């Protein structure tokens, strides 16, 4: 039993020694210059980089196009004419009450959309490697 234990111990030690002494190959001399050439090329080229705001604006733009499409699909012609008439009436109204509501609502929606986009896109960094 003890003898077997000794043999196992020696075998493990031999394997351990082989694993630790397994030699590393020398990297080719061309490796470092090749890396630096690529890095210098990258540094000198104008970098195209998107910030979160680009994504936010894109999302907002796409959302607006989608909204217009949906409205276009939903509104029948009489409803559309009625809607336009309401806007015209609102503009001609001395207090511009309706117009101010519409503008405020639009501004609020815009700000909300930007904040939603900021919330979504700030979670992602759009880079190829893990951020450690």
């Amino acid at each position, binding site marked *: 039993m003890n003898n077997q234990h000794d043999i196992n*111990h*020696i*075998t*493990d*030690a*031999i*394997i*351990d*020694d*082989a*694993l*630790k*002494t*397994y*030699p*590393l*190959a*020398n*990297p*080719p001399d*061309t*490796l*470092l210059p*090749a*890396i*630096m050439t*690529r*890095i*210098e090329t*990258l*540094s000198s080229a104008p970098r195209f980089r998107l910030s979160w705001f680009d994504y936010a604006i894109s999302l907002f733009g796409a959302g607006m196009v989608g909204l217009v499409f949906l409205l276009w699909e939903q509104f029948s012609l009489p409803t559309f004419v009625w809607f336009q008439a309401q806007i015209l009436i609102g503009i001609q109204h001395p207090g511009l009450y309706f117009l101010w509501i519409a503008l405020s609502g639009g501004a609020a929606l815009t700000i909300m959309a930007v904040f939603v986009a900021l919330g979504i896109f700030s979670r992602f*960094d759009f*880079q*190829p*490697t*893990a*951020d*450690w």
Partner: protein
Amino acid sequence: MQPNEVELIQQAKTGDTKAFVKLIVEHQSFAYNLALRTLGDPHEAEDMAQEAFVRAWLAISRFRGRATFQTWLYRIVVNLCYNRLPNLRRELAAEGDEKIANVHDGLSANPATLVEIDEQRAFLHRQIERLPEKYRLLITLRYQGELTYEEIAQVLDVPLGTVKTGIFRARARLREALRNFEE
């Protein structure tokens, strides 16, 4: 991480290519060997090491030092290996997550015994080269990179148990080969 390396990383983050060259010089040997052991082809390994350092340069501004630069860089190399060998991650995961209490590494035999093992050592080195990619990758990280099991799990993005099982099985294969060699 050595204080000097922290400074080099900070300088590289500001775009200092000379500082980054020093980081490359420090780590190129292991990054290249990690790719070489995994892929088995020197030309592919060189391309992969090159790509890894370029990616590291592009991403270094976001390196926050939560892990060491070494493990962060190895993770990039391993991700490239995963892309190159799509089955590699699946094969590692297939190792399972067995409860291996203790992998018998770090042992040392009587120096007098070790003097006699040159032939066995050379034989085992050849056997290491014949191991499947997943075992070569694990062994390189553990014994040449001298990473802990936890660091290897982090680099490979696999459970700790998978790392221990993989290294245990790789050693078992070498033990079996050595037994056949001696008979």
